[in-house]
């Protein structure tokens, strides 16, 4: 039986053609249909000790949901996934499965792993289409009230987990729309915003309340939240403070942080001319950085009509942090990779608009503190690239607004919130934190994992309260 399974190849995800998709904002991977999904599900060996589950930050019961897909029991499959994962439609699309579940799949040792991500997405999309998968049992109210600060993946997870346990949850979101990085950072062609709205609606169905335009730390303090009757607070404000290169000319017009560029495009829909927020196009675009954010920015610039888009990265291909699939799709769409290249200085025209960037070639030396080989300048290898739009995607740090306003909140030397990683507890009683504001910039699924851990600890704490 297992031999038969091993003979089924990993099903190929239907993709939009690169030449077509680089001109639209529709999803690139189109998703499995029923036939492909059920065939792919057959490949799973249903291991007794599933390595894939160990690779999942929220421990999705993978072999179990895959078995249900194989048997055509899709509604039961979504209920199974939702036991552990609040946002399966999101995760199926954006998780770095190659480093997590699929990276551990036994089939991957000698062949291709099971397409766990694609199967999760299939199940979630089917549930969205058919409108099923809700929790049907009666939820008893506990009378306890929780404030969640931030409606990104970690806040949404905490809210969902606690709401399902009967607690009253209010999410305070700084922006006018919910989802955090899911809505401002990840582009439409990787994660349709309709999915984020759908997940938010689901939470509202569970009784979760969203308060928008609320910047905690400015409009209210954490202490005031407790005074208003909240029993516990979760801080999931993320690491959204953009880093810049700090090179000459970086404040010229036409140079953006990736956050700004993506927020204009994704949240404020600047690509749609009927929306008022403007965006700038360029003929020669460089994106500095090689993580997922850099790929998102580059592929967005292409879709907005920029002619030549290059990634400029000081290390080599092997060190690029972006998800393999994103790099692959970017290259297919015609984005150039200028590797082992570092920008030194931007120069502008008479209107202070950027017109070129001076770069230097790099070579790799000894590993640095991140474990990656340190890039070193090659003397005398300076050269210039024409550039009328530059996007800086070299990471971001802790947002200081809330942390500055809570003097008792213990921070790390780099201004992240110090929290016990096994419980999410901070130095303030009744206050938990998780996601990027604790760990620094990471991934959606890790933020969800942190939210999951905190929610469990918070529930235990709340049940002890009078």
């Amino acid at each position: 039986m297992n031999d038969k399974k091993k003979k089924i190849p990993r099903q190929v995800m239907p993709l939009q053609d690169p030449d077509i998709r680089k001109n639209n904002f529709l999803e690139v991977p189109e998703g499995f249909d029923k036939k492909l999904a059920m065939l792919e599900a057959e490949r799973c060996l249903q291991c007794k000790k599933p390595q894939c589950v160990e690779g999942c930050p929220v421990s999705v019961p993978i072999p179990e949901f895959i078995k249900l897909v194989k048997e055509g029991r899709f509604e039961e499959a979504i209920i199974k996934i939702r036991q552990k994962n609040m946002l399966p439609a999101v995760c199926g699309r954006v998780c770095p499965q190659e480093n997590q579940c699929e990276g551990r799949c036994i089939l991957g040792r000698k062949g291709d792993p099971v397409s766990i991500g694609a199967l999760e997405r299939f199940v979630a999309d089917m549930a969205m289409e058919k409108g099923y998968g809700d929790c049907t049992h009666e939820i008893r109210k506990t009378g306890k009230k929780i404030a969640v600060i931030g409606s990104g993946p970690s806040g949404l997870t905490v809210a969902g987990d606690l709401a399902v346990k009967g607690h009253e949850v209010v999410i305070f979101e700084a922006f006018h729309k919910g989802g955090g990085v899911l809505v401002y950072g990840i582009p439409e062609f990787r994660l349709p915003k309709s999915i984020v709205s759908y997940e938010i609606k689901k939470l509202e169905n569970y009784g979760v309340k969203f308060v928008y335009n609320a910047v905690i730390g400015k409009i209210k303090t954490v202490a005031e939240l407790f005074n208003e009757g909240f029993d516990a607070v979760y801080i999931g404000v993320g690491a959204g403070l953009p880093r810049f290169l700090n090179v000459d000319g970086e404040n010229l017009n036409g140079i953006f942080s990736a956050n700004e560029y993506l927020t204009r495009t994704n949240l404020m829909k600047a690509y749609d001319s009927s929306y008022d927020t403007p965006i700038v196009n360029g003929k020669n675009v460089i994106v500095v950085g090689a993580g997922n954010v850099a790929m998102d920015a580059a592929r967005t610039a292409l879709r907005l009509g920029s002619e030549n888009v290059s990634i400029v990265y000081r290390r080599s291909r092997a060190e690029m942090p972006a998800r393999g699939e994103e790099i692959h799709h970017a290259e297919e769409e015609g984005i150039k990779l200028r590797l082992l290249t570092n920008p030194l200085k931007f120069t502008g025209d008479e209107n202070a608009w950027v017109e070129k960037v001076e770069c230097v070639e790099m070579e790799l030396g000894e590993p640095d503190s991140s474990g990656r080989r340190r890039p070193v300048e090659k003397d005398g290898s300076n050269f210039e690239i024409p550039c009328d739009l530059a996007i800086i995607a070299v990471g971001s740090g802790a947002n200081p607004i809330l942390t500055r306003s809570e003097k008792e909140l213990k921070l790390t030397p780099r201004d992240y919130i110090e929290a016990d990683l096994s419980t999410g507890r901070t130095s303030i009683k009744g206050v938990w934190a998780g996601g990027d504001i604790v760990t620094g910039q990471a991934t959606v699924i890790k933020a969800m994992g942190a939210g999951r851990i905190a929610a469990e600890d918070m529930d235990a704490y709340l049940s002890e309260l009078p």
Partner: protein
Amino acid sequence: MYKILRREEIAENIFLNEVKAVDIAKKAMPGQFVLVKYGEKGERIPLTISSADIEKGTITIIYMAVGKSTLVFSSLAVGDSFSDITGPLGMPTDIEKVRRVICVGGGTGIAVLYPIARGFKEKGSGVDVILGARNESLMILRNEMGSFADNLYLCTDDGTLGEKGFVTDLLRREIERDKPDVVVAIGPVPMMKAVSELTLKYDVKTLVSLNPIMIDGTGMCGCCRVSIDGKTRFACVDGPEFDGHKVDYDELIKRLTAYKDKESFKLKDHKCRIRNER
């Protein structure tokens, strides 16, 4: 939420809206601002909180209708609501009791200056106010300023109100007469630059409030970055107020022009549609 309770055209093309915003009113401090949006497709723009009334639960914003968004705002009636108002944002002005502060306001910057000048007075400082505008029809809040200022001096470019001249002329005279402890200058960037160059010569501490383009207002995009003493700072979380002698004004002036072309296109489009729809 965010319902407009009062609407007034307080000077030529300059509008005042008093808006219901209970939680913001409770927390608003002089120098802080809000990000305002109207409609699903509208942009987010920063406007200073000119005053806040905790009892009524309202804040007041004042703006000139120069671009698409402010034009739309100015067309809203009492009873209409803004879609989103986020705040109070920015660091509040560091207001202390001083012997003498000269508050210099230019154009719509006067709306930003007003709560700060009043704040200094409430702390027990001696407050003199110099207001400048291009002409009489563009001068705002002079009665309000006059109601608490120890001395109020007005000037216009064309002499239609007060003295004919620039705020820097009046300021120089006042500094030479009696050197103040601090000058607060808020107005068009060239004005703040000119005031700062002047006060540097006389070694008078100067505070300015910068007005770069903004989107989120919470420090996550870097759009509002300004150079202070050679270092990059975000006006929305580190400012909007800064030491006037450390600001790179030329850079700010250039950065403010980034979307000029797009703006005039949007405006033309908007005006044409409004005409057709009427």
